[in-house]
């Protein structure tokens, strides 16, 4: 009976996520920035200054996104740099079907995921949560909350961690995650469902008490 109730709760959790996805409205026509188009055309003709302008325009946004993939300042700068170098190399393939920032975000997500997979050797399954992670407080400082969440998601495997990072930090829906990673929406939904379950189990095993919050 309890198992059935738990299963029903899990399904309703997933249904809520799917309903939220269906509600999300996809922009029919993406908004393009004229300056971007001019600088992209210039970059394609070999104008280095035009590409430097694009980098300066979007490096803040990309740094913010890469901050979800690492808390190490030096690694973050390397990752941001890698994103822009890769973007330049792939620029001839940019069809301008989506705004430049969306396209950059896709490259950034894949770069971050690649970085995690490279460092995944350090990751071990079913590791016990440290006392700090097992005892989530009510955070009022965003950087403390981000630090806690980063540490918690670090306990998951790279694929689960990516899905939850995009869901929690970037507030992406499954459509957006699927688009960024080139995965199917069904795969994203299944991964999100499993990852949340895994996270719940980790917290419960670590002695997370409902009354404590």
């Amino acid at each position, binding site marked *: 009976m309890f198992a059935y109730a738990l299963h029903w709760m899990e399904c309703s*959790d997933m249904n809520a996520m799917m309903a939220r996805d269906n509600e999300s409205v996809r922009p029919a026509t993406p908004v393009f920035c004229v300056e971007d188009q001019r600088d992209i055309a210039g970059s394609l003709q070999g104008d*280095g200054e035009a590409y430097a302008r694009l*980098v*300066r325009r979007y490096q803040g946004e990309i740094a913010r996104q890469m*901050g979800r993939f690492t808390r190490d300042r030096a690694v973050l700068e390397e990752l941001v740099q890698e994103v822009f170098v890769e973007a330049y190399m792939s620029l001839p393939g940019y069809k301008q079907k989506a705004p430049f920032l969306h396209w950059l975000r896709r490259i950034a997500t894949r770069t971050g995921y690649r970085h995690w997979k490279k460092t995944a050797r350090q990751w071990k399954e079913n590791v016990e949560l440290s006392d700090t992670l097992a005892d989530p407080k009510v955070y009022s*400082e965003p950087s403390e909350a981000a630090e806690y969440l980063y540490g918690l998601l670090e306990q998951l495997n790279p694929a689960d961690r990516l899905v939850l990072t995009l869901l929690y*930090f970037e507030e992406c829906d499954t459509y957006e995650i699927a688009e960024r990673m080139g995965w199917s929406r069904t795969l994203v939904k299944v991964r999100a469902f499993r990852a949340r379950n895994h996270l719940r189990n980790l917290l419960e095993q670590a002695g997370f008490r*409902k009354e404590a919050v």
Partner: protein
Amino acid sequence: MKTPLDHIDQIAACARREAGPEVDVSAAVMQELRHKMFAQDRPLILFTAGSMITAAGAMAYSLIIIHALSNPLNVLFELTPLLGQ
């Protein structure tokens, strides 16, 4: 009563407000791109340089040969006085 995931949702909402770090990678990106472009063009540069050196060598060799060759008409002019006799 909140479940662990409800609490994590709450923490995530707070974490999203975190400001991004300030970085300036434009100079480093441009430097790396210049380096990459040079590395990408290197085989072509080497091939062009090799072709130029070969062409210059061939030209020098042919000039030496041309100078070494005697005028074939010289033989005729050497014979002409004999024919006149």
